[in-house]
């Protein structure tokens, strides 16, 4: 990348932000931009929103195409060979007998008492001390091992976001994960989460109908919204309500009666562990009246009825628009995108192509006005750094989790609220601090969360090593003695010991996340860019990483900070980059 190419870009960027007479009349204009309007700055915007951003080289490649070709290079991702993408490598933690996994420890204990075995392990013979200990150990093993496996799954997906040749596929899968929000904290089965993730990716750009049928038969979602308890005699409205409120129409377009009738249609839609199961004994085959339709409707009929409603097209198209373009949407654009979405048979791809080509997408209020989600913030930074593999020191899940977003664990069924809600004064500071951990990764002090045992359980191990028996080893503290004694009073098992054992067993079986810091040479980057002075360096980093110009006073402060330092000192360059990435402007996409 030569500096010559970047100079005009900088001018254009400034012009677009500050003046842009053409671009302000583009607001709400859905007609396509012309070849003449295509430039590096707009290509960068497309890559930011339609993917996770990229290096100057990535942007230049898009800029060299026509807008149609550039948009197609993202949208027509099915044509891109992605065979290099590695599937998730399961550790194999799920043993025979662990399905169906008991909903609680108490339930595991009850099974153990009644049957003499549970979770595939036998209780000890009658009269043995703590005869149910193996069962309870296994229960906690299941919880801990699954939690580690879900962390591994998050790292796997993050790496895929970073390295996929189909960035839009991953960005869309992330959108649907937030739309059809499902969390492993409740599901407690990474296998279900993995299958849901594959289903969402498979249909990400296809029809909304396929996604709806897929998600409403998806074991993770069925568990998450308690549809196993949606039975003829006691319909559970959780599922039917979220379908209408969150997944399709939005509030205000249906009645409470529609919720109840819809719930009846989904009775008996349940799962046999990893497979959808239609339980006809629990299904209500009676007549229902849902919206404008009456008959012995089943779940698929409900979906098809919902898809006849204009509200559905508008609600989902508007959510896609807000995710890819901007928060404020004019009623006219909403109506038009909803109409064309519905008219196309709810195909996502043409909708996105239209949005990405529209003048509105490149208009001023659509540009550099989004706040990056934590996942996008971290992945796009790695992209812009030019990394080829996900750094795992610091831990990806911890970084984004501290900012309010953990993959496979959205806060509730409504997904991540996004936008300004990502930002609190404390998270804004953390959003900068985390890059210090990336740029100055400290492998010696790093403690891997997938191998971390909470202190209370680690103490059990220490106590046992000192020669204490289990009862002594699991006693906690002094002030809490009485409440902690409860778990020891049960002669059938010791809960704290089981929890400790569960961690040990999980650490043995669940593969560790391989740990490595970012492979990055800012010296090489600066040298390739011929950035030899403090001014040139600051400008280069700002161009490469920011979507808006740095305020003059910040630029001056950064230049002064670097003055006297060497452009061949990797640590000095990293100190400078940390400042750039901490700027409030860096939150903008």
């Amino acid at each position, binding site marked *: 990348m030569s500096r010559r190419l970047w100079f005009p870009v900088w001018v254009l960027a400034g012009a677009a*932000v500050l003046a842009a007479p053409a671009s302000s009349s583009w607001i709400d204009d859905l007609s396509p931009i012309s070849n003449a309007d295509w430039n590096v700055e707009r290509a960068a915007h497309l890559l930011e929103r339609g993917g996770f951003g990229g290096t100057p080289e990535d942007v230049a490649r898009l800029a060299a195409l026509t807008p149609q070709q550039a948009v197609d290079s993202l949208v027509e991702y099915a044509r891109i060979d992605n065979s290099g993408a590695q599937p998730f490598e399961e550790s194999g933690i799920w043993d025979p007998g662990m399905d169906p996994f008991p909903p*609680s420890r*108490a*339930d595991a204990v*009850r099974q153990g008492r009644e049957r003499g075995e549970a979770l595939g392990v036998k209780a000890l013979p009658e009269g043995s001390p703590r005869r149910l200990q193996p069962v309870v150990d296994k229960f906690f093993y299941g919880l801990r091992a699954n939690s580690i496996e879900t962390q591994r799954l998050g790292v796997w997906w993050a790496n895929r976001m970073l390295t996929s040749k189909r960035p839009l596929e991953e960005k869309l899968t992330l959108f649907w994960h937030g739309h059809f929000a499902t969390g492993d904290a409740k599901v407690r089965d990474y296998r279900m989460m993995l299958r849901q993730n594959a289903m969402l990716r498979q249909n990400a750009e296809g029809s909304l109908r396929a996604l709806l049928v897929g998600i409403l038969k998806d074991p993770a979602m069925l568990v998450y919204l*308690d549809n196993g308890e949606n039975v003829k005699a*006691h319909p559970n*409205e*959780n599922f039917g*309500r979220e379908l209408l*409120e*969150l997944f399709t129409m*939005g*509030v205000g377009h249906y009645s*409470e009666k529609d919720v109840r009738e819809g719930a009846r249609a989904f009775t008996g839609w349940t799962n046999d562990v990893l497979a959808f199961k239609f339980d006809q004994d629990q299904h209500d085959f009676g007549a229902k009246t849902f919206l404008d339709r009456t008959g012995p409707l089943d779940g698929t009929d409900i979906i098809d009825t919902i898809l006849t409603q204009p509200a559905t097209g508008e609600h989902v198209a508007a959510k896609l628009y807000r995710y890819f373009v901007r928060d404020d949407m004019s009623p006219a654009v909403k109506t038009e995108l909803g109409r064309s979405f519905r008219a196309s048979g709810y195909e996502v791809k043409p909708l996105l192509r239209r949005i990405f080509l529209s003048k509105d997408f490149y208009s*001023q209020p659509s540009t*550099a*006005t*989004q*706040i990056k989600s934590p996942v996008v913030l971290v992945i796009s930074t790695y992209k812009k750094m030019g990394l080829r593999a996900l750094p795992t020191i610091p831990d990806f899940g911890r970084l984004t989790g*501290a900012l*309010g977003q953990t993959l496979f664990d959205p*806060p*509730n*069924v*409504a997904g991540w*609220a996004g936008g*300004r*809600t990502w*930002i*609190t*004064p*404390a998270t*804004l*500071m953390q959003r*900068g*601090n985390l890059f*210090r951990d990336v740029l100055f990764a400290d492998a010696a002090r790093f403690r891997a969360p997938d191998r971390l045992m909470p202190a209370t359980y680690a103490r059990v191990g220490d106590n046992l090593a000192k020669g204490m028996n289990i009862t002594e080893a699991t006693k906690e503290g002094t*002030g*809490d003695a*009485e*409440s902690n*004694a*409860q*778990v020891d009073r049960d002669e059938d098992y010791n809960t704290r010991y089981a929890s400790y054992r569960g961690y040990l067993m999980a650490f043995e079986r669940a593969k560790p996340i391989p740990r490595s810091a970012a492979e990055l040479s800012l010296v090489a980057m600066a040298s390739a860019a011929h950035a030899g002075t403090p001014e040139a360096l600051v400008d280069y980093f700002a161009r490469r990483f920011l979507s*808006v110009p740095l305020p003059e*006073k*910040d630029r001056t*402060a*950064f230049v002064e*900070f670097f003055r006297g330092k060497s452009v061949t000192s990797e640590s000095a360059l990293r*100190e400078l980059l*940390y*400042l750039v990435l*901490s*700027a*409030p*402007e860096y*939150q*903008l996409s």
Partner: protein
Amino acid sequence: MTCNCSRREFLARGLYGVSLGAGLPVFLSRTTAALTAQALQGTSMEKHPERILVVLELSGGNDGLNTVVPHGDPAYYRARPRIGIPAKEVLKVTDTFGFHPSMVGFERLYKDGRMGVVHGCGYDHPSLSHFSSMSYWHTGVPNAGEPLGWLGRVADDHLDAKSRNLIVNIGTSQSLAVRSAKHSPLVFNDPATFRRDGTDDQKKVLAQFGADAGAPASNATLDFLTATAKNAADSSDFVRQAASSYRTPVDYGIGGAFGGGLQRVAALIAAGMKTRLYYVSYPGNAFDTHVQQGDVHSRLLMYTADAVRAFLDDVARLGRADDVAVMMFTEFGRRVEENGSLGTDHGTAGPMFLFGKHDRIKGGFYGRPPSLTDLDDGNLKMTTDFRSVYATAIKEWLGYEDAATILKGRFDTLNAFA
């Protein structure tokens, strides 16, 4: 703070309260005049501009029947033969009701007339999902997709959006309850980590982010970020300093995060923060007591009662008892009948609690106790819509007449505040 001065004088003095000049960061002293002017402007319609509302959340679904125990009702003991609190142990405050034996703090508050208990709070078509139900309590609009929190909407309608830190949320993430269209709540958990990392040289550079906040740019999102950066840069020092320098003789107990959170609120009040709405959560779904709940519930309630009692005493010690009310809720009560694991499953209605100074709040019980035998699928039928209690806080305590607009529905208030 007792203040016989005019509202205007009160604001000018009360903005930073007693500690102005004492240990206040320089940048705050410098901008006092400007901020005071702002506060005066933003509160021109305020009836009680000095009043503070502290909302406490018990997450996980607190077992209301073992908290406020209906010791006079045989149906309670029939439904809970193993986990019911024996009548002789209950801290009785009426012939029919009393507190869990570990809640010595609540017994004291009740007897002092500093506490109101509202029976049977819930809403129509209750959700038994933690997430859904909690989001309904957070938004104050059950069974709808309301995007903003009820406290956020209170602030949007009544508090000056240009003034910072009017909402403080102690926690690792922002609660939906305080999500606001106009305000950026100050959210922090550990004040010690509420800072920019870096070398001294870097911190100097980082500290000036947002210094030009307020100069409107063409980019509203950037304006918001710059304002938040300024808020963070200004508030983090203040908060860290206030929290680290705060010393109190009052014993908050050993409740960890919850007591610690309330103590941080007291520290900010002592430091003269102009915050009007505080939100503290008992975190981690702690009250979800499905199994073997006896000891763990007892401990949770003890921590809770200790912390609330201590906070009210501490606020009184600071001379601000007149100005502070506390409301406490959980997302649902639990099933009337105990389950097979010496615990309780998700239920519906439960008690809510209001606290304040004895001559500000009218202590006692409110609402009708729900029947323990006339049930809805094993669950209590709610007798008071929880938004009546919200409306009480909004109208009677904060003095905002438009509670119906904020809550998107008209709810009777309880006549609980003098």
